[in-house]
């Protein structure tokens, strides 16, 4: 701790001693009440006053001296109104000292100043001499009450207004972050949380429930509770707590389902910040479940192509009439898994067959069956091409070009899967045929490469046969020449 803080804590402690020994005969309060000023009136309801901490606990001076000159004399330790960061330091003299807090009978945490200093409010400043927020900014100065006290500015019902004091003030916010929205409260009041809060429900989420209190960080900061990867667990502190949520009669397994879903895996396991968290579909300050009409718009904000295709498809009208949520009907909501080809078609596990049967809906039935067949054959011919390519590769053949083309087949399959949402067999066939064509070409090339491998071996065999024949006949030739030479006594003669 720095020196001035030491001094301050000594001061506060001296004040407490005085107060203890001399009872309630606090000359500061007596005199100031007599003058009728606001701080002294408010202080009588202050939790600190009720705990026996006098004015001098924060302001210094001698509470026993009746004379102003003596009581408010700097020589007696009077410091007047603490300015800037000294306010927080003054509070921290007690609130950051766990031993002292225990002695005063408090079980409050003691890391508030530390949290505040590392928070976005503690780090931002304009003048450079003081931090953006100090304790009194939110808690007030003389009428400080317990957080649970309904009259406290940071109580669940009041905290929204307290935060909004700055955050809804565009002129003020511009000084710090011109691009930050100032409509959070407005949105909040439209949310389920906000409407219930307005009705006096202290259990619903308010600002601090999600953003934290002393340790608030920018949403772009990985430490923030509202950083994309942290949002699901932040929401689930309440929404995953069955006991807490019991009176609201809504499921509490969303987090569990979400973390298994394709979105949850992408966000929580792969750290893909582009993947949606809770707020991407439900909104953040204006959080509410998307209505039936808006589901496809919400999903379509990312899956735009699928949404566009769907909107132009014959299903759009039928779904709207039947009051079916568009994407959700086939894909589910929180537990959305990566869509597989199994969803398509007329097999029992395919979603199409839920409505389309050969008797009732023969056209849709035929279309679903055709699209599934095409997808399957696209997949199997791509697979066959890929296995031929890898066979050629394993045989040590250079086949990077066919491998390159294989990408196009894959791409066509991807596009075909998207094209399903048009529910138009003609369009689907177009894309699928392109993929089938490419896969066929790759198959041919890979097969050629594999054939080349065997050609090399056959070639070697042929060359070996030729060389062996030549070698054997050469050997016979040598033998014959030498036989002839021996007859003529050429070989074996001595030089």
């Amino acid at each position, binding site marked *: 701790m720095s020196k001035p803080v030491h001094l301050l804590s000594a001061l506060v402690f001296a004040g407490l001693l005085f107060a203890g020994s001399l009872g309630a005969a606090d000359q500061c309060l007596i005199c100031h009440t007599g003058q009728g000023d606001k701080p002294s009136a408010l202080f009588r309801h202050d939790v600190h006053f009720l705990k026996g901490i006098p004015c001098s606990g924060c302001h210094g001076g001698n509470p026993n001296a009746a004379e102003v000159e003596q009581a408010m004399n700097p020589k007696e330790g009077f410091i007047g109104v603490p300015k800037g960061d000294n306010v927080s330091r003054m509070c921290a003299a007690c609130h950051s000292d766990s031993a002292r807090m225990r002695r005063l009978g408090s079980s409050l945490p003691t890391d508030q100043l530390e949290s505040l200093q590392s928070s976005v409010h503690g780090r931002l400043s304009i003048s450079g001499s003081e931090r953006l927020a100090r304790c009194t900014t939110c808690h007030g100065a003389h009428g400080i009450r317990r957080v649970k006290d309904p009259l406290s500015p940071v109580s669940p019902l009041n905290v929204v207004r307290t935060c909004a004091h700055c955050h809804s003030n565009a002129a003020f916010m511009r000084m710090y972050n011109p691009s930050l929205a100032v409509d959070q409260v407005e949105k909040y009041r439209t949310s389920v949380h906000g409407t219930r809060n307005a009705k006096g429900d202290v259990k619903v989420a308010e600002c601090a429930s999600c953003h934290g209190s002393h340790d608030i960080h920018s949403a772009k900061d990985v430490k923030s509770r509202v950083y994309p990867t942290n949002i699901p667990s932040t929401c689930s502190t309440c929404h995953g707590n069955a006991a807490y949520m019991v009176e609201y009669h809504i499921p509490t397994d969303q987090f569990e389902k979400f973390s298994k879903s394709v979105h949850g895996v992408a966000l929580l396991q792969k750290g893909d910040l582009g993947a949606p968290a809770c707020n991407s579909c439900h909104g953040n300050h204006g959080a509410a479940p998307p209505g039936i009409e808006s589901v496809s718009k919400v999903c379509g904000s990312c899956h735009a192509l699928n949404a566009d295709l769907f909107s132009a498809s014959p299903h759009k009208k039928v779904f709207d009439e039947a009051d079916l949520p568009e994407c959700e009907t086939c894909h589910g909501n929180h537990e959305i898994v990566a869509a597989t080809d199994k969803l398509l078609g007329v097999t029992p596990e395919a979603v199409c067959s839920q409505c389309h049967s050969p008797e009732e809906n023969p056209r849709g039935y035929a279309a679903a069956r055709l699209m599934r067949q095409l997808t399957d054959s696209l997949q199997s011919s791509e697979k066959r091409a890929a296995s031929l390519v890898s066979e050629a590769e394993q045989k040590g053949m250079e086949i990077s070009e066919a491998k390159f083309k294989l990408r196009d087949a894959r791409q066509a399959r991807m596009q075909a899967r998207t094209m399903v949402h048009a529910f138009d067999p003609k369009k689907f066939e177009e894309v699928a045929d392109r993929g089938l064509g490419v896969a066929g070409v790759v198959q041919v090339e890979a097969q050629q490469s594999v054939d080349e491998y065997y050609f090399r071996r056959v070639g070697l065999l042929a*060359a070996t046969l030729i060389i062996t024949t030549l070698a054997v006949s050469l050997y016979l030739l*040598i033998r014959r020449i030498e036989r002839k030479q021996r007859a003529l006594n050429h*070989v074996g003669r*001595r030089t």
Partner: protein
Amino acid sequence: MIPFWKRAYNWIDERVELEGLVHFLGKKYVPVHRHSLWYYFGGVSLFLFIIQVVTGILLLMYYKGSEELSFESIQFIMSKVQFGWLIRSIHSWTANLFILAAMIHMFSVFFEKAYRKPRELTWLTGMLMFFLALGFGFSGYLLPWNELSFFATKVGTDIAGVIPVIGKLVMPFLRGGDEVSGATLSRFFGFHVAVFPGIFAVFLGIHLLLVQRQGMSEPLGTAKEGGDEFMTMPFFPNFLLRDLLLWLIVLNLLAILAVFFPWELGRKADPFAPAPAGIKPEWYFLFVFQTLKYIPAKLWVVDGEVLGILLFGIAGLLLLLVPFWDRKSSRGQENRFITYLGIFIVLYIIGFTILGWVV
């Protein structure tokens, strides 16, 4: 009517007097004894060298000696060019077999003391060609510019850099800079396809001329066993046809190796990547590499690596000059010391090569 080939022969004979050469060849004899087998390794080395020249020229048609393109150009040869895989694999395999054959040839000459008077010059040119062959191997290894060759060259040139006095000059000369880079590749390419072949051709010419002029050496020991005279066979056609027969077999072996064990290309060298584990030089440098690993870093006041390189340098020099200090063999006496020394060298090389391979 005179056959065509006879007329052609006459036509040439009238102009360059082939008769003398044919007469000379006709009178050339090769000694036949129990060590005759070793005579063939010179011929095999020659054949392998011819293959290297042919396949090397073919590779030059597509190879590009630059940092960006050499790897890709070899990939291209291996995949796109018809039979490119064959040419490249044969070139790589032949390089190794050539060094092996040359080594066997050299040691057979050494053990038979065939370097003795009057064949000192044949030995000298042969040894110089062998050193050049090592240079061919070292420079050619880098040309595909893959990971292994890059780091092997780094280590190899590092070793050249610690040679006392001249090392500091030799290393930048070899590398074309302070580090192994594209400049090194350009240099090695130049050495491999222009400098070395030029010098090699001169030595090879002298070497072959001397062999033809002086005939095959007759081993010292066999002279005693066989009495005063030797069993012989005519060089032409008996020995030459045998040579050709062996060459055919070697060619077939090469084709088999190229098809069943195509030479790998590996991954492209990345000068900034960490060295992969298990960097080893080509097998014929392995015993030197392994020895240097075993020499302690400091021996008294001398740097261990420097000492090792000096020792190998001296050993090489002694081997090169053996005809000049082995007086006994030149007088026609048997020199057992040379035999034991040779056995020691062979066992040392084999032992340390295996060690380097296994460890």
